[in-house]
């Protein structure tokens, strides 16, 4: 069975005004959104720029916005996002500079991660076949940037540290003897750190990898709030407990 669907794809080339191109494609609904985009590229428009690598949700590089919501098109089936004759509105991730068509510059993401010294931290729990003390990536985060795209605060505050990096900070703090540098603390606990979050939980809603960044931000806040209350009550910091 094949469905004919319409794809309205946001197009942008440096130096040219942005526009939207409409394509029709006939495709098996069991195939993925990425398949439909590749089909358009193969059969209709070789100038369409998009990014992908693994095709199975482990590289995070194909993330985009489809019908207003961030998805990983490599694992999203056509039948789950539209119906026969339906339309997909396809845009690059929000809150990132667009390089061309559906490809964004991930700089804002990695710069934020860099502040908390992610993605490379260590030592984390070793994977099977891994020597202890080898560096490991932050949990499940595939660095797709969807959380930054979905966050309403990132949309207006480019200084906001944002979901992934704050989740990474939580991860560092809760792993053994991990602590953050003074600079990272400044970013995490400052005006544009975890207190800018307004609990929309959109990052957790779109995260394809169950990182639950919003949950991590709240866990960090609880830690800070407890710390603050202890401080107010003159109980001193709970540092000793953590050092154990």
């Amino acid at each position, binding site marked *: 069975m094949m469905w004919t669907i319409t794809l309205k794809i946001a197009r942008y080339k440096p130096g040219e005004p942005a526009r939207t191109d409409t394509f029709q494609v006939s495709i098996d609904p069991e195939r993925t959104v990425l398949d439909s985009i590749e089909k358009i590229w193969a059969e209709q428009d070789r100038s369409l720029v998009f990014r992908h690598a693994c095709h199975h949700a482990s590289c995070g590089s194909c993330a985009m916005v489809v019908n207003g919501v961030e998805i990983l098109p490599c694992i999203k089936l056509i039948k789950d996002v539209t119906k026969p004759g339906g339309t997909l509105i396809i845009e690059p991730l929000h809150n990132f500079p667009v390089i061309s068509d559906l490809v964004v510059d991930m700089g804002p993401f990695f710069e934020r991660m860099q502040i908390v010294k992610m993605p490379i931290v260590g030592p984390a729990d070793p994977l099977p076949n891994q020597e202890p003390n080898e560096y490991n990536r932050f949990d499940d985060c595939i660095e797709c940037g969807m959380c930054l795209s979905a966050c309403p605060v990132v949309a207006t505050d480019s200084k906001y540290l944002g979901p992934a990096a704050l989740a990474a900070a939580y991860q560092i703090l809760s792993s053994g003897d991990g602590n953050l540098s003074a600079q990272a603390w400044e970013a995490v606990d400052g005006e544009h750190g975890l207190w800018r979050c307004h609990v929309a939980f959109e990052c957790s809603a779109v995260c394809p990898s169950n990182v639950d960044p919003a949950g991590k931000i709240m866990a960090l806040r609880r830690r800070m709030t407890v710390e*603050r209350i202890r401080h107010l009550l003159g109980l001193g910091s709970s540092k000793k407990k953590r050092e154990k």
Partner: protein
Amino acid sequence: MEPRNQRRGGLGWFGQAVSGVLLLILLGLHMIAHHFVVEGGLRTYQDVLNYIRQPLVATVELIFLVVVSFHAMLGLRAVLFDLGLNTVQEKWVTRGVTILGMVMVAYGIWLTITLVSQV
């Protein structure tokens, strides 16, 4: 943890949460006392004067005004800070909402005194 002294990011949030919870109580009282238990839903001029002349009422109302102004201005500041302002703009926003909040409270005190001393 690192020394907290330069890290004040959480104070605003904390203040907002605490004042918010207080407001649930104070605003509840305010609505009930001023509107729901009052015949006709709004006190007439003379009733307002008689009411505000009770010291306890005046005190609670002024506390309410302080808390509500604090919460409103802190909230406004948070919304403006969400715009990703630069540090100079942030400073002006903080100053602006502080002054506005103080004007609101001062106005409230002036109004209360004026009403209480009115014949």
